[in-house]
């Protein structure tokens, strides 16, 4: 079996409940507000399909559910389909782990890869995840969707262009 190793980990603490955090990660009503307007499509079971879709219907990320244990652990295979040049990257795994921590909830996001990923390619996720998960935290704590602007990850795009797989 191919081994996937953690390359990017982001931890945040949220004043909420595990159930609410689970809902925010798995329902479009929430993802639209903190994940740059993306909707999430899920078959809520192990082996079920998973996708993130842009408002115009384009599939951004596609994969399969590889862990489904509400409200504790949710993991998917993560294949980026858009922008098109990203589609040649091997799929990674994205895992969310939720645990109560005092009167808060600890959320750990782990992005794991099966190959020696160049740092420049990891930079996209390292820019994106803090914005996505800061947004999720604000949304659950204040009810307000933040407007975090992101530049395209230039180093990542450049690295993908030069990548020989």
């Amino acid at each position, binding site marked *: 079996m191919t081994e996937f190793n953690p390359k990017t980990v*982001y*931890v*945040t*603490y*949220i*004043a909420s409940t595990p159930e609410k955090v689970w809902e925010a990660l798995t329902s479009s009503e929430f993802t639209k507000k903190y994940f740059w307007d993306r909707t999430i499509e899920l078959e809520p079971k192990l082996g079920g399909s998973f996708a993130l879709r842009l408002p115009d219907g384009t599939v951004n990320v596609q994969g399969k559910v590889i862990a489904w244990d509400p409200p504790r652990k949710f993991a998917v295979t993560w294949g980026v389909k858009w922008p098109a040049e990203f589609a040649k990257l091997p799929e990674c795994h994205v895992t969310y782990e939720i645990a*109560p*921590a*005092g*009167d*808060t909830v600890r959320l750990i996001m782990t992005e794991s890869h099966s190959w020696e990923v160049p*740092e420049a390619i990891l930079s996209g996720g*390292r820019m994106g995840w*803090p*914005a996505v998960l*800061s*947004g999720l*935290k*604000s949304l659950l*704590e*204040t009810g*307000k969707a*933040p*407007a*975090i*602007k992101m530049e395209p990850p230039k180093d990542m795009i450049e690295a993908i262009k030069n990548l020989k797989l």
Partner: protein
Amino acid sequence: MSNKPKFVYVTYVASTPEKVFEALTDGDMSVHYWHGSRIVSDWKIGSSFLLKLERGDKEIIGTVAEYDPPRRLVYTFHPQFGGTDKEPPSRVAFEIEPQKDQVKLTMVHDGFEAGSQVFEAISRGWPLILSSLKSFLETGKVFRPDWYDEEKKVQP
């Protein structure tokens, strides 16, 4: 790539650069989001930096290296307990960038030797402290970490 450990944490806060900078440098504010621990410094370059931990008279000391409100703050970081004082001081750098209606706060903690005990501890600690700072500025509420009640019980 060097194998010296470095910890990077980024968070976005719905606030202003001035408020985020104040939260990072003001003793009274630190007590709220740092779970009772207090930052003490006059923030002159070369002055001492002190973090008095709420848990059992423990201290982290350091020196102010850069103070550029409301953009950048750098201090050295040297815990004085549990054998960690034997490690060399490490370095904490905060960078504050305004966004549209948010502030991007980037913290880089580096200067560790390989296998540093302090690095292990701060990798667990910063996500909680900076999540707490974000909540404090956005909602005015502070939160209680999971170890808080347990530690309270063992205090004299």
